[in-house]
């Protein structure tokens, strides 16, 4: 479980996050949603410690991450898996080397054990026989899947995904969403996904937190979201004409 307590963050005097408190539950897919520039990426980067917060605390399984020294933070981070927006695969390494990287760095496994683990993770994301390809030779969806395989290779307790569907076609985006849901349940992780994709919200939002102008405006599940009367959230989610019509049909049925 991850708890965020009253965190604030500003850059050059501009307040980007303002007194945000929220908790993300284990074994569930937690979504942070909001418009571009709403502060959701800054919030995610504060949670994982890439940005220092100005105020407030972040707790991982009850331990205050913000108060930890560098060495303790490194130990916690070894339990992280992260899926970046562009994949952030290491260009100079092959698919196999990218996935094996954490095993080489943090374990004393034998070459055979590592190979088995890498093969398992690549199979899990449906990417077999691509071991020797370089990131430049992969499609956007394949890069995301390799990044997921790299993220889960050490059985992380926490998975963070920054806009996992950006740049993907709707079908591939749904595949990635399903994969995130499946591995969250399989590894019983606390997963936080940053997105502004309505499909993802409906597909995997066990818990949804809506951020705008650096403040938390709403939280609930993807089922609650259809019936919310929060105007800001409705304007954000149902900006698309077709989706708005579907919501109207849903409202009239009720």
């Amino acid at each position, binding site marked *: 479980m991850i708890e965020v307590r009253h965190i604030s963050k500003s850059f050059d005097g501009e307040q980007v996050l303002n007194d945000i408190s929220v908790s993300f539950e284990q074994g569930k897919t937690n979504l942070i949603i909001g418009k571009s520039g709403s502060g959701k990426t800054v919030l995610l980067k504060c949670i*994982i410690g*890439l940005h220092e917060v100005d105020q407030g605390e972040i707790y991982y399984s009850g331990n205050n991450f913000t108060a930890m020294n560098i060495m303790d*933070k*490194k*130990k*916690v*981070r*070894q339990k*992280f898996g*992260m899926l*970046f*927006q*562009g994949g*952030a*695969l*290491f*260009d100079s390494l092959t698919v196999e080397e990218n996935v094996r*990287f*954490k095993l*080489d*760095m*943090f374990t004393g496994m034998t070459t055979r054990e590592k190979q088995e683990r890498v093969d398992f993770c690549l199979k899990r994301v449906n990417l077999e026989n691509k071991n020797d390809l370089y990131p430049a030779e992969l499609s956007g969806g394949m890069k995301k899947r390799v990044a997921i395989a790299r993220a889960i290779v050490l059985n992380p307790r926490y998975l*963070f995904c920054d806009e996992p569907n950006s740049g993907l076609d709707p079908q591939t985006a749904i595949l990635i969403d399903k994969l995130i849901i499946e591995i969250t349940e399989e590894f019983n992780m606390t997963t936080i996904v940053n997105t502004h994709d309505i499909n993802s919200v409906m597909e995997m939002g066990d818990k949804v937190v809506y951020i705008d102008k650096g403040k938390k405006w709403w939280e609930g599940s993807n089922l609650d979201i259809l019936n919310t009367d929060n105007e800001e959230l409705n304007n954000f989610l149902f900006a698309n004409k077709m989706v708005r019509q579907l919501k109207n049909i849903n409202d009239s049925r009720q």
Partner: protein
Amino acid sequence: MIILQHIGRYSLLIKRAFARPEKHKMYYFRLIREMEALGINSVGIVAIISFFMGAVITIQTAYNTENPLLPTYLIGLAARDSILLEFSSTIVALILAGKVGSRIASEIGTMRVTEQIDALEIMGINSASYLILPKIVAFMILAPFLSVLSMVVGIFGGWIAGVSAGVVSTADYVYGIRFAFIPYYIVYSLIKSVIFAFLIATISAYHGYYTSGGALEVGRSSTLAVVHSSVFILLFNLILTQLLLS
């Protein structure tokens, strides 16, 4: 104030780069890769430039010492001292600042803007140490070898050019090369090459590591890396010459 900020950030980055590695074996593999990328791959350019510079130094010296009172073996002596004292360390370092410096800055800069450095940090890896330390060590190990290569090829180029142009005989050139030879000049040159290698690797890594933005900023960091490395090479050339030769 901005200069002080840069000095402070540079010092902190170097301190982080020299922190204890997470896993020595991984750093060893990276060191070997960097030795190939930064050192072995520079052999060609160093050899070509040294050959032609040695040739030009010899011919220019010959045409500027046409006085019959000056013995022709001085051509070999002047070429030797020019190559040993300045060319093989300083000029080669300036050339490598362009080749190696831009490579380091653009590689690390691209990793920064594509979030690969963030990915390393999230994994609990000291990205500064993992990315920069092997480059510094690899380049400092190989720079003296490149310098020695430059000396040998430069003197050889001078001999070929001098004899081909008919400005000096082989016997006079070789006599000049051996005349009043001071072995310390080689040590002086090698010390300079090691320090210049450190400057190129760290300044370029600094510019790459603190790149923010996109492709345009990576190019800008790369240019700044070459410019600043070159300026510091010239500054330290002056300081080291005063310290080591006075």
